[in-house]
């Protein structure tokens, strides 16, 4: 509460204090003060305060708390007693030396790279496809957003039954072509692929929407001029579309990476990290340590490692953006 009162309270306080020391004529003083604490300035500050408060409360506090937590032995007892002994870097040592750390790091990388490539390539193809107008194109494009509108829990539960080995519709479908049923979610060698495929499906609408927007911004004159010089089809794509789309592509890819790194619900819903830990990622480890094993310190350590990786990509993104502005 005190934080929020600061700006409005400080103004009257100084207005009272000021006259005592001053030697200036009262009228001049008032004018100066008015300049400093004019309604306009106060208003400006007030407009910044909500945003600043929001960032401090909802970003600053959780991150600091998470870092602190990862340095403590934070368990269920802590909630009642408020005591969490400092353990230094012990939680990080537990994390890095656990047998599941490297596999889950590898899985996180494979999951992210696989998802991003799939989402982007299919997303770009669909965006380019919808660039030309045809009957019902708008309707079909809005239908594409459907996966985005579906709650992820519902989506993963549906996919789980689609991918069921015996009665799943996908294996039944493959069976009509005489193909063997694939153990999508029950074989450790296939499960990660299955989870990536579902995540690609989830991510396509985002990619299509942004890339479609980017394509709309490329002036038609460029294509007309290109066509005169013989650049059509693939040539037009490589020499006109791609270079003009690059800023949008970098946004899509980097946001995609940050979103995909932290994916939790889809994997939890589909495999819960199984079979035989084949789909464990850093996000799943963090969730399970915190909310299944109640080792909140270890869970926080896992999520901080994840935040660090995301941060790395965020920095790349910001630098890339700055370069574009400089150019």
């Amino acid at each position, binding site marked *: *509460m005190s*934080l*929020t009162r600061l700006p*409005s309270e400080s103004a009257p306080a100084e207005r009272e204090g000021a006259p005592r020391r001053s030697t200036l004529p009262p009228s001049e003083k008032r004018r100066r003060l008015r300049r400093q604490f004019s*309604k*306009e300035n*106060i*208003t400006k500050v*007030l*407009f910044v*305060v*909500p945003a600043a*408060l*929001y960032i401090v*409360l909802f970003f600053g506090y959780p991150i600091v708390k998470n870092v602190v937590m990862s340095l403590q032995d934070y368990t*269920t*007892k*802590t*909630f*009642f*007693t*408020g005591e969490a002994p400092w353990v230094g870097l012990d939680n990080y040592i537990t994390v890095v030396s*656990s*047998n*599941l750390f490297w596999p889950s790091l590898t899985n996180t990388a494979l999951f992210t790279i696989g998802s991003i490539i799939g989402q982007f390539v299919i997303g770009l193809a669909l965006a380019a496809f919808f660039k030309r107008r045809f009957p019902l194109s708008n309707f079909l494009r809005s239908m594409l957003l459907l996966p985005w509108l579906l709650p992820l829990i519902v989506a993963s539960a549906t996919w*789980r039954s689609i991918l*069921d*080995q*015996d*009665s799943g519709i996908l294996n039944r479908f493959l069976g009509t072509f005489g193909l063997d049923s694939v*153990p999508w*979610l*029950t*074989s*450790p060698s296939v499960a990660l692929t299955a989870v990536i495929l579902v995540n690609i499906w989830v991510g396509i609408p985002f990619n299509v929407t942004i890339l479609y927007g980017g394509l709309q911004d490329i002036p038609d004159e460029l294509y007309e001029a290109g066509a005169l010089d013989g650049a059509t089809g693939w040539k037009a794509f490589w020499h006109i579309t791609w270079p003009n789309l690059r800023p949008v592509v970098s946004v899509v890819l980097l946001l995609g990476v940050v979103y995909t790194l932290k994916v939790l619900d889809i994997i939890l819903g589909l*495999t*819960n*990290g*199984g*079979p*035989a*830990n*084949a789909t464990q990622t850093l996000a799943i480890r963090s969730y399970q340590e915190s*909310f*299944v*094993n*109640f080792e909140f310190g270890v869970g926080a350590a896992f999520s901080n490692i994840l935040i660090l990786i995301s941060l790395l990509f965020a920095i790349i993104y910001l630098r890339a953006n700055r370069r574009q502005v400089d150019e």
Partner: protein
Amino acid sequence: MKKRRLTTLLAIAAITPLALTACGSGGGGAKSGGDPDTLTVLDYYNNEPDKTLIQAAIDKCAEALDVKVKRETVPGKDLIQKVLQRSSSKTLPDVLMLDNPDLQEIAATGGLSPLSDYDIDTSGFAEGILDAATYEDEVYGLAPTVNTLGLFYNEDLLAAAGIQPPTTWDELKTAASALTTGDQYGLAFSAIATYEGSWQFLPFMWTNGGDETELETPEVAEALQLWVDLVDSGASSKSVLNWSQADVKDQFVAGKAAMMINGPWQIPALAESPDVKWGAVQVPVNEIGQTPIAPLGGEVWTVPVTGNDEKQGKAASFVECISSDDNQLELATQRFTVPTKTALADEYVEAVPTMEAFTEQVANARSRTGQLGEEWPEAATVIYTAIQLALTGQASVEDAFAQASAG
């Protein structure tokens, strides 16, 4: 000028909710305090029919004790997080329901008060449930009814194949193989990578003399071998790796499994498909002469430390009332669970004959946390990981537990 004042006002209006969230203690909900005659209750029976049945029991006890009750229900998976939040904000309810394997974890935080503080008689209750409710020699909660696991079988399918319900592992394997035809598997169970998978494995492990304190033993390996055999022979689907117990029930109801390992809480759901005629027996044993030992499931009612002695006393009487003989029989009959007072078993089986196998099973059932207490979650994780490693062929039955416990 007027416009400017308006913007200032708007800015202030924008801040206010933030300030309020910062100050508020997340009020609302069933926290203790306020009216001395109102008890707050927190439980996870948020689905029908349990929600209404438990409400009736709560109302009855509220009337008997002449108190008002404010009840809050949350989804099962959210309960522990809710309890932890409430303990840190010192807003625990007067009466708290916990899943029995979680009790010791919460009791260890110091957030619950022992029932001996209120001179509550805990004799006559089945030993298994008291073990689960005991932390450092003090009983912290009482359960009106409990559940466990058994073997459900499809009467029509077994009769058609001329097969009696199996009582030993060999019979189980033979029967399951014989009942596997076309789309239909012989047996369904849950070997999912959650505590559910571990819970389903326990009757086999315990019956064979295995123990969670020492998992790398021949007895435990034999039990795991049974599951591996069932899946490798094709008598059980590979999908058991990803089936929850609800999925297992769906397979059984759809006629895609002739038998299943499951609990009596599925009986109301089975009743919705009256064309599936089923029976239930105790979980088969490895060798004739062994006693089937299954894990004990069910919820215990506890009295959190709220700092208000008078209300804690009333809450304790409430817990005592909810697990009284009358309530036990009534809840057990309605919810297909088993009374926790062993003396009530005969009367209960007479009233609900379908529950006979489960009632016998409960008499010898063990609690998951009886031996390991707060360490149980770690053992449970090792168990389901080992099951998954063995069923996917990533580790041999002998190495599975060693590999799983390595972490």
